[in-house]
C-alpha cells in the first residue's frame, strides 16, 4: 500500500500553492493515484507563512489533511520554524539552502536535502520558477510522483508560452537531485 503525506511551505508569492497543486495533479490525473490537495486560505496565502498539503494514496483517502508528513518542502525560515521541526524519522526534508537555515538538531534521522532553488531560477532569468526547480528536486529525491506525470501536470497548468522555461527549471531540479543523491 502506498500512502504519502506531503507538505509544501514558504511565504506567499513563492508559488507554494501552485507547487502543491502540480504535485497533486501529477499524481492524480497522470499517475492515477488517489489524491487530496488542500491549502491555506485567506490573507496568509498572500504573504507570511503559507502552506499546501497533498496526500497521495493507493487507497481511498478518508481524512484529507496532512498530520504526519512523509515529505516536507520548505522555502522560508518562518515556514521552517512552523513545519520543519519534530518530523517523524525517515521524513524527506527539502529546503532552499539560501532561504532556510536548518538546525542540525532537527535533522536526526531526517533525510535532509537542500537546493539553491531560488538562485537557480534567477540564473534562468525567472525568479517565479523557483517552485518548479524545487518540484524537480522533490521528484528526483522522493520519487513519490513520476517525472512524466509531473511534467504533464506542469504543461497542463502553466501558460503555454511559459512551458519551456518551466520545463528547464524542472529538469534543473532533477539534475540537482541526482547530484545530491550521489553525494549522500
Amino acid at each position: 500500500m502506498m500512502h504519502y503525506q506531503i507538505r509544501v511551505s514558504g511565504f506567499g508569492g513563492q508559488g507554494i500553492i501552485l507547487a502543491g497543486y502540480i504535485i497533486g495533479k501529477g499524481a492524480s490525473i497522470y499517475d492515477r493515484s488517489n489524491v487530496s490537495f488542500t491549502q491555506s486560505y485567506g490573507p496568509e496565502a498572500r504573504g507570511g507563512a503559507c502552506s499546501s498539503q497533498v496526500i497521495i494514496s493507493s487507497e481511498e483517502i478518508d481524512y484529507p489533511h496532512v498530520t504526519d508528513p512523509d515529505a516536507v518542502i520548505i522555502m522560508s525560515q518562518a515556514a521552517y520554524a512552523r513545519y520543519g521541526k519534530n518530523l517523524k524519522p525517515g521524513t524527506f526534508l527539502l529546503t532552499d539552502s539560501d532561504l532556510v537555515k536548518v538546525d542540525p538538531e532537527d535533522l536526526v534521522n531526517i533525510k535532509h536535502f537542500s537546493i539553491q532553488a531560488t538562485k537557480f531560477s534567477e540564473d534562468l532569468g525567472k525568479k517565479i520558477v523557483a517552485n518548479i526547480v524545487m518540484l524537480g528536486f522533490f521528484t528526483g529525491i522522493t520519487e513519490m510522483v513520476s517525472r512524466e506525470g509531473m511534467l504533464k501536470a506542469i504543461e497542463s497548468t502553466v501558460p503555454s508560452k511559459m512551458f519551456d522555461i518551466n520545463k528547464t527549471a524542472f529538469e534543473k531540479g532533477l539534475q540537482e537531485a541526482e547530484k545530491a543523491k550521489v553525494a549522500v
Partner: protein
Amino acid sequence: MHGEFFMNGDIACAEGGISGGCRLFAGYPITPATEIAERMSQRLPKIGGVFIQMEDEIASMNCILGASWGGVKSMTATSGPGFSLMMENLGLGVITETPCVLVDVQRGSPSTGLPTLVGQADMMQARWGSHGDYEIIAISPWSPQEAYDFTIKAFNLSEKYRTPVLVMTDEAVGHMTEKVTILPEDKIVLEPRRKPPLPPDKFKLYSYDEKNIPWAPNAGDGYRIHVTGLTHDERGYPVVNAETQNKLVRRLVNKIRLNEKEIADYKGFYMDDDPEIVIVSYGITARPSLSVVRRLRKKGMKIGLLKLNVVWPFPEDVIRKIASIATSMFTVENNLGQVSIEVERVNFGRCPCFQIGHAGGEIHSPEEIIKEIEVSLKNGHR
C-alpha cells in the same frame, strides 16, 4: 468539457451546475463560495448562458427565481451571511414552487465568523431558515466529485418536485482539490421541466398530480399565469383564508414529506452486519468518520457509518430501523447539535444517542472522534 480534472469542490460545483443545465447564475461575492461565481463568469458567457453579479444575496435569490419562470435553469451560491439574506426569498421559491438551486458553502459562524474556515452549522437554517411551515430538499457532498454529481442531482430534484433545492457543502469540500470526472453531455440524464399537460384555457397553474406536484409553463408561453407569494388557490389567485392556507401548506409539505423515500439518498459503510455502534454523518465530516470506522473495525469493534447524501427530508425510517438494532448511535457533525437532534427525535429512546460536535474552524480529526466515542461508551448517556 468532459473527462478527468484536478479541481476543487467549488469549481466542481459550478461544473455540476452547468452539466445540470444551469444557464443563469446570479450571485454576490462571498468567501468561501466566490470560486463558484468566478467559474460561472468564465464559463456561462461561452455556452450561451448568463452570468450576473447582483447587488446582494437578496437580489441574487430573486434573480434566479425570475430566471426560472423565464424558462432557464438557474442557480446561486453563497455562504452563511449570504445564506441568511437568501432566506426571505427561499420562502418565495417554496410557495411559488419554483425550481432552482441554492448552494451554501458553509463556513465557521455565527455572523461573519470564520470566512476562510469550515463549519456545518447552517443545517437547521437550511431546514427552517425561511419563515413558515415548509419542507425542503438539502443534499450534502463530501468531496469535489460529489459536489459535481450532487449539483446535477439538485437540478433534477428541483425540476422533479418543483422546489428550490439546497446544496449544503462546506469550506473544506469547496477548497479541497481532488480528481473529478465530468461527464459528456450525452451521458447526463436531466429532468425536464414539468410543462402543463393541458392547454391554457383548461389549465390551472397549481393543479397537481397524485404526488402533490404541480406543472408550470414559463412566462411567455401564452398561459397568462399569476404567481404570488400570497396564499393562493389552484388557479394561483390569492385567497386569504384558513381553508386555502390549510390546503396549500399541507400540499407543499406533503409534496416532499410523502415522497421522502423516493428522494432519500444515503450510503452505508460497514453496515451489512448490523453493527452495534453506528455513526451518522454527512458532508466533509463523514470522511474522518469513515476513517474512524475503518480503524475501530481493525480493533474488532462492530461499528458502521451511515452517510446522509440527502439530509432533508430526513430519512426517518432508516434511522429508526438502525436505532432498533444498534446499541448506540453517534451523530458526527461540524456544529454543536443540529442533525443530531433529528437523529435523537426519530430514535425516540430506542438506543442511546450522542452528538460528537465541533464549533467549526477545522474538521474533526479521527482521533478526537475515537476519544469521544470511547468516553461516551464508558460513561453512558448524558
